[in-house]
Each structure stands twice: as C-alpha cells, then as structure tokens.
C-alpha cells in the first residue's frame, strides 16, 4: 500500500515539474518558471545533503561550502574565459558547460575529500561544529578573493554554453535543471540500496557492530561525504548559471542551515522529501515576505514545531504514518 502511494507521489512530482513551464506560460506567470528552476537547484543540493544527514548520519553544518565551491569554479572559469587570462598561469577559462560543470563537481568533491577526511576524525557534536568552522573559513577566503570580486561577488555576463541548447532561454535552462535533478535523485535511490549504501546505512546506525563485522566505517562515510559534496558542487554550478552571479554568500553557514531546513521539512532520509522541502521553503520565503517584512518571526517557530512534531517531514505525512521503512 505504502509503496504504491510513494510511487504515486513520485510520478505526480515528475509530472508536476515536467508540465509546470507550459502551464505557467499559459497563465502568464513566467516568473514561476525561474522560481521553480531555483527550487530545483536547491532541491539538488538538499538531496545531496540528505545523503549525509539521512543515510550517513553525518550532521554537516557546512554543506553550503561545496555549493559555493561549485559556483566559484563556474564563475572563475567564466572570468578567465572573458578576459583570456590563465588561472594559476596554465589553466585557461571556459564557458562550455560540458567542461565547466564537471570541473565544478570535481573540485567540490576534492574539497569535500579534504574537509571530510579532517572532520571525520571526530563525530557527534564535534563534527557539526567542525564542518561549520571549515565552511566559515572558506567563506572568509572567498570574501578576500580580490581578483574575483571578494565580498562584492563575481558577475557573469551570460550563462554557460551547452551544445545544442540555449541556456539563456528560461525553458531550456529549466529542463536542463530538471534533467540533472532527476538523474541525481535516481542515482541516489540506486546508491542507497547498493552494497555501498547498505554498508553506509549500517555504519551510520551502529558503528560498533559494523567494525566488528570487518568494515572500516570511516572510509564509507568519507566516500558518502565526497559524493554529497559533488552533488552540492553541481547545484552550485547551476546556481551560478541561474543567477549569472557568484558571491561568498553561497558559502555562508546561513545557506547550510537553510538546506538543512529543506531536508527536514521535506523528510529526512527519503531523497524525494528534500525536493518538497526545497519547493516549500522557497515558496514560503517568497510569499510570506510579501505579506510581512518580519516573516522570520513566524518561520522560526513553524520550523521548531515541525521539528518537534513530525518524524519524516511532509513526505512522511504524504506517504503516511511516518513510515518505518529503514533509513
């Protein structure tokens, strides 16, 4: 029963996202297309964070760092392409999405490898605080990056090129984001059921047992951290393209907190839930703000109540009963 309901929600969601642009255009609400593009990009980042929080039980409060790294790779490559200069004296810039986006993913993954390797020397509260501190360190680093605009950020004058598509076109870009988000979520659903995913879920529920079974849990967690970082990097690359702008704000811990809110609001450890969470968060932010300047005074308590009362967020409510399917 639950399985079919879950499927229903997922298919419904896919249909919704697929049909949104034509419907929105029909009603003349073009701006919804870009709002939902943004929501999908945040969803991508939130899903990657769900891998960490929901499946790896690694509470990272510095996930925005990888979003920021991805965005900066795109921005910096664009910068060098625009003025024909070389990065570190030998890397040329590029506007080609097929070059830049994989590069963003790769660099974010490498960042995650370093930060993860250091942070995973600890666990629990230490881990939370250390990830936060490292992200903050990168934030200050970006603020001081004079060549690339520092705190003022780095404007891009147009979006990346992607063979055969016009990313500057709202619809093209929307569907590119939709495609990438779907692929990423699909890969994640495979991942959590794979051998790696099983070991990871085991490692996150009972460290003692998994070690006694002969598994070096830290290396699995590290790989998960890297994969999540890579996902966030992709989201960063897309976000840079969406706003045609990169700024240190993307590395700020406020964004990490917001991503975390999206995951929990949508449903921790559900992969599809964070998408709902991201959409809801952006809609709330967008429309609460129209009604009151002080929207956060309402949003804060709502958040607390959601945390205190629901187990698996909106997705859990929709699927029913909070669900007891593992991890």
């Amino acid at each position, binding site marked *: 029963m639950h399985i079919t309901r879950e499927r229903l929600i997922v298919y419904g969601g896919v249909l919704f996202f697929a049909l949104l642009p034509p419907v929105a255009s029909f009603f003349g609400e073009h701006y919804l297309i870009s709002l939902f593009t943004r929501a999908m990009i945040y969803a991508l980042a939130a899903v990657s964070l769900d891998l960490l929080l929901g499946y790896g039980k690694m509470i990272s409060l510095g996930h925005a760092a990888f979003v920021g790294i991805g965005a900066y790779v795109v921005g910096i490559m664009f910068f060098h392409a625009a003025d024909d200069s070389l990065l570190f004296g030998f890397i040329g810039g590029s506007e080609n999405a097929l070059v830049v986006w994989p590069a963003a993913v790769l660099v974010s993954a490498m960042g995650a490898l370093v930060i993860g390797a250091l942070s995973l020397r600890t666990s629990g509260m230490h881990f939370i605080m250390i990830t936060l501190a490292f992200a903050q360190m990168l934030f200050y680093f970006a603020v001081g990056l004079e060549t690339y605009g520092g705190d003022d950020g780095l404007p891009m004058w147009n979006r990346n090129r992607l063979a055969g598509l016009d990313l500057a076109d709202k619809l093209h870009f929307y569907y590119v984001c939709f495609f990438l988000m779907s692929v990423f979520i699909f890969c994640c659903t495979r991942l959590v059921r794979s051998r790696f995913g099983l070991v990871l879920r085991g490692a996150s529920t009972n460290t003692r047992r998994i070690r006694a*079974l002969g598994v070096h849990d830290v290396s699995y967690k590290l790989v998960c951290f890297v994969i999540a970082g890579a996902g966030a990097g992709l989201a960063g690359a897309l976000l840079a393209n969406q706003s045609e702008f990169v700024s240190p704000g993307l590395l700020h811990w406020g964004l990490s907190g917001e991503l975390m809110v999206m995951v929990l609001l949508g449903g921790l450890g559900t992969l599809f839930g964070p998408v709902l969470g991201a959409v809801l968060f952006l809609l709330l932010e967008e429309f609460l703000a129209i009604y009151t300047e002080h929207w956060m005074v309402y949003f804060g308590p709502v958040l607390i109540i959601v945390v205190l009362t629901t187990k698996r967020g909106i997705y859990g409510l929709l699927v029913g009963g909070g669900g007891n399917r*593992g991890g």
Partner: protein
Amino acid sequence: MGAEILAVKRLRKSFGAVRACQDLSFTVQRGVIHALIGPNGAGKTTVANLLSGELRPDGGHIIFAGADITTLKTYQRARIGLARSFQITQVFEELSVAENMALAILANEGGNFRFWHDALCSPVVLERLPLALERVDLVAQQKMAAKHLSHGERRQLEVGMALAGRPTLLILDEPMAGQGPGGTRELSRIIKDLKNEVSILLVEHDMQVVFSLADHITVLVNGACIADGPPEAIRQDAAVQAAYLGRQ
C-alpha cells in the same frame, strides 16, 4: 601453532587504579568451545573487548591463527576471521533482518564500493542469505525491521551476523544474558551446532550453560586466571570453588 587458533600472552589492561586484566595468558584450540568464566567484575568483557580490538592492551600479545594481531584495529581483526557478538545486542536497528544479515555477509567479502546494483540482489547474498537466516531461525522475520524483533530473536540475529562472515573464531560475549529459559535452550542448540564449523570463545556468566557446552574452561577472577582445564577439572578445583562457585 597448528591446533591453536588463539593464544593470549601476558595481557594487561588497567582503568586508572582498577586492574581489569593482569598478565592473562591462555590458549584456545581449534574446533572447540572454550569458555571464559568468572564472577561479575572479573574482567570478562574487558578481555572480549581486548580480543576484538575495541580496547588497546597496556601490554602483552594476542596471537590469532599464528599472527600477532595486538596492534590491529577491530575491523582488520574481523576481516581475518575473528568475529564477535556483544553482551548488549548490537544489530542495525533501522534495517530489516534480511538487510542486517546481507550486510554481515557483504562486510567480510570486501569490495563494497559498488554503487549501482541492489545489495540484496548481489550474487553472494542470493547464495548465502537463505542459509544464514535459516541457521538462526529467522526466515519468517526477514522483512521485519530489527528494532521490532523480540529480545531472543535479536540475539539470534546477532549470532547469525557474527557467523555470516564465516569466521574462524567466534567470541560470544554473554549470549545468554537477559534470556528466558526458552531462549537459552534455543541458543544453546544453535551454539552446539556450530562447533563443527568454527572455534568458539564463550564468555559467559551462566554456569549451567558453560558446563553443558564447553570443552575447555578458563576461570577469571579480578582480571587474573586462577584455573584452566576441562570442565570436570574445573568443577573440582578448590580455588575455583572458593573464589567463585562458593559464592553462588
């Protein structure tokens, strides 16, 4: 070597002023059930933790299948065939019984950095999971989450998981703790059946179980070995009676 699977040599461990293990030496032969007994606070669980690698000894050596494993980490020891169960059952609460068992099977296989195919459908799991579940009588419960199992069933699952990796030595840390008479009987039967497959170090408090199962017994008091021999010899040993049985 040869007949010995495990040799413990002058093992020492202190927690502050408490000496949990003092110059402990004993050997476990292949293919036997070797029991480690002692009154509460004798340091039995400390020894189990030292052997599995969760604790570091202050001194002494642990030789497993001819190799010195004193400095190896828990997961490394598990990989070369040293498995254990815990006094307080340690299973993966959120996962289903089948997933628990599959994980135990896969863990020792290595090569788990595979990200695409469903873990429960991998060949090695398909091949070994049914048998592994059957051995501990959990076929019917395989879809249940581990946290919904009864106390006895969880214990069975844990023993089953420890066995799933085909260890050469299995350390059972107080498997009967908290079991009712029915559970004890069931578990005793399972342990007896295992004797042909794997050497067992049974760390136990329940004397009846020990004397009915063990081939060889080491008695621990205050972290030191006071007697070592076959059950009959231990039953007769004056020191043991004075220090341990006398108080029962």
